[in-house]
């Protein structure tokens, strides 16, 4: 088979499309009605939907931070363990909000009129960067087990050292381990799939594969 035969096959395709006047009201979206529908913003790009989801997450995150701030302020440092735990949880929530804001800015920077490699790389990076947010958030885990600590409890009750403290220690070690191991390198591991949930995991896997594909494509 020659090159010209391949090209002729493609040309025949174009000719058939023209002959059949495919782009008619019934079969294709390219018409005034659809265009007006699009203009009403009923149709949103998937990227825009993602941006809207992240904006809502930021709003909810801010409300959560305000709630934690009220809790911390309301306690007036009566129990420093409670206040410090709440403040640390608040800081992690602020980090999460910052990550989401960064994602929103990344989405805004994606310009489909740039070269295909640049745009697709940004999209894949956006997808895979969710894993970085997740690993940071796991670090807050032990602080959910410390807010009810008190000096009195430590000094007078052996149960603190036998139960409460080991639990916190366990969650601290777990959080550090997760922070170290939730990486793109480990994304194929089964435990990470369970932790991320099937949908998120699939998206990250695809993004990772796609980034590899882009790199391979660039190398030639």
């Amino acid at each position: 088979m020659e090159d010209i035969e391949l090209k002729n096959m493609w040309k025949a395709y174009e000719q058939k499309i023209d002959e059949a006047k495919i782009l008619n009201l019934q079969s294709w979206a390219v018409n005034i009605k659809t265009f007006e529908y699009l203009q009403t913003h009923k149709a949103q790009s998937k990227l825009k939907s993602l941006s809207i989801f992240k904006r809502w997450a930021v709003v909810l995150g801010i409300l959560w931070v305000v709630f934690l701030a009220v809790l911390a302020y309301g306690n007036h440092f009566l129990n420093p363990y409670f206040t410090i735990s709440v403040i640390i949880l608040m800081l992690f929530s602020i980090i999460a909000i910052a990550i989401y804001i960064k994602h929103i800015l990344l989405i805004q920077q994606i310009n489909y009129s740039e070269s295909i490699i640049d745009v697709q790389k940004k999209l894949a990076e956006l997808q895979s960067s969710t894993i970085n947010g997740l690993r940071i958030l796991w670090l807050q885990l032990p602080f959910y087990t410390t807010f009810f600590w008190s000096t009195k409890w430590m000094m007078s009750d052996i149960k603190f050292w036998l139960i409460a403290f080991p639990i916190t220690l366990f969650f601290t070690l777990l959080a550090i381990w997760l922070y170290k191991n939730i990486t793109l390198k480990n994304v194929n591991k089964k435990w990470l799939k369970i932790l991320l949930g099937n949908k998120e995991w699939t998206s990250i896997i695809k993004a990772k594969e796609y980034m590899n594909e882009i790199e391979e494509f660039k190398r030639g």
Partner: protein
Amino acid sequence: MQQGKDDFLKLISENKGIIIKICNSYCNNKTDREDLAQEIIYTLWKGGKTFNSDFKFSTWMYRVALNVAISFYRVNKKLKNNISLTETDIEIEDKIFDATTSEENLNLLQQKIAALKELDKALIILYFEEKSYKEIAEIIGITETNVATKVSRIKERLKQDITNAKK
């Protein structure tokens, strides 16, 4: 605003073949194709201000349309993989092709193009659309040498696959 809309629709109409071919190459069923066409047109309209008049409208349109198609394809990959071959007989083909050798060849070519990786698919569509290597390099974002090497490799693969399928 109305004038802008009319001009936009005129440009879209003049270049409609681009959208059709990209939608056909990246989607196997009517619903997906319509969704993709809508998303491409929406992105083109929204991104109108990013159009640089130094470039040809079609070059800009290829960039936007292929970028949308590739992203769309990724989201719908699972769905696409679940479609059997019989369901891939798209409505357009039913309407426009007679049962001739030409139809068989076209179906075969479309099938083989559909089986390519996303970026390879974009590259070969641009090649078939008679874009120069320079223009393809600009649209895709790789060097001209890389374009030449890849086009040659993909063409060989297509030729081999089509020849084998005909045997």
